[in-house]
């Protein structure tokens, strides 16, 4: 699998610790929602480090590739990607990789997505893929976060679920909940699932 070079065309902070990186990749072969890429950083002496990141963008023919990276406090690659990398710079990647955890727009069965934290990223690619393909398949998302400020893609998720009755969105807050939230903070458990009318 060959390494390609993408150019950073936009950066967007999703939360204080997570950043979306939009790349333009000249010969990108497109991808399927749920797939990931390997990203390679190379130091001036040739040392390199590679990590895998889920694709956040829907499949597209324009060579636009979006990743959302959560910064790990003791990480080697994620602090660079979320704090150092600048618009106009080049980033090496290869992919798309993975054929198991994917959603294709020709699929017709209803989908229950369940995300915790940065695990939303490949599921967001599926939600975006559904929207861009004009699919009307029912999608439900259960999205568990530590606290409300940790939600990625908040406005976009709100907009999609507002305009499309067949997309429903349920948040769970494990450490701190918004003032008007119906449940105290806590992990998703069987009572949460029973009360939330999830398709489980």
């Amino acid at each position, binding site marked *: 699998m060959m390494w390609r070079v993408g150019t950073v065309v936009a950066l967007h902070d999703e939360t204080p610790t997570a950043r979306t990186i939009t790349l333009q990749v000249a010969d990108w072969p497109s991808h399927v929602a749920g797939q990931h890429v390997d990203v390679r950083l*190379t*130091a001036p002496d040739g040392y*390199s480090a590679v990590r895998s990141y889920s694709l956040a963008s829907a499949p597209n023919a324009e060579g636009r590739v979006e990743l959302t990276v959560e910064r790990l406090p003791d990480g*080697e690659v994620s602090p660079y990607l979320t704090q*150092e990398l600048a618009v106009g710079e080049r980033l090496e990647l290869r992919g798309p990789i*993975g054929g198991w955890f994917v959603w294709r727009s020709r699929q017709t069965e209803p989908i229950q997505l369940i995300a915790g934290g940065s695990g939303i990223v490949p599921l967001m690619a599926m939600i975006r893929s559904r929207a861009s393909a004009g699919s009307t398949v029912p999608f439900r998302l259960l999205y568990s976060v530590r606290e409300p400020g940790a939600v990625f893609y908040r406005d976009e998720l709100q907009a999609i679920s507002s305009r499309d009755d067949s997309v429903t969105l349920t948040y769970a807050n494990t450490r701190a909940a918004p003032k008007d939230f119906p449940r105290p903070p806590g992990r998703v458990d069987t009572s949460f699932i029973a009360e939330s009318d999830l398709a489980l």
Partner: protein
Amino acid sequence: MGTVSRGFFGRRTAADVKLPPGQYLTTDFPVLSAGPTPKIALEKWEFTVDDGTNVLRRWNWKSFRELPTENITADLHCVTRWSKLGTHWEGVSLDTILGEIESDAEYAVVRSYGDYTTNLPLADLRNKQAWIAFRFDDEDLAPEHGGPARLLIPHLYLWKSAKWVRGIRLMHEDQPGFWESLGYHDYGDPWREQRYSGDE
């Protein structure tokens, strides 16, 4: 050398730790599964060796545990790039399992509860390279790590060390298993960095 990442210097592993290319060291034990963790009662557990037509050998938990066991110290290398060194296991050598079976098969498909499969050359299961492991760090192997028993074949990437193992099928032709059908390498040698289909 590829594109140099401005401002990236990396964090090298200590020089006395030799890791396969592209791996980083971890001290915890990450869990990655493609599906739910099967619950297997020991009184229903069995392990078979078959040739696709006939069952050649069959063990229940009691007869399996009467086989001679070995203590194993092994380095684990996951294709998702973490490596964990010096792990301690107890298990039954595949030399013991396959010892009395006469076959001219050259390949094997390892099968698990939950229908996971992985393929490898039969020679890789012989000669003190592979075990059916049932204890980790002096404790019964936890279900999330593959208990009651898993394959342990440390010279290949860890997806080959099938969790919840239930049998081995001897094959005359190589037949890709689960991940090997979904974009991952047929053999998976970490020292040759055989991660994905098409890697040399």
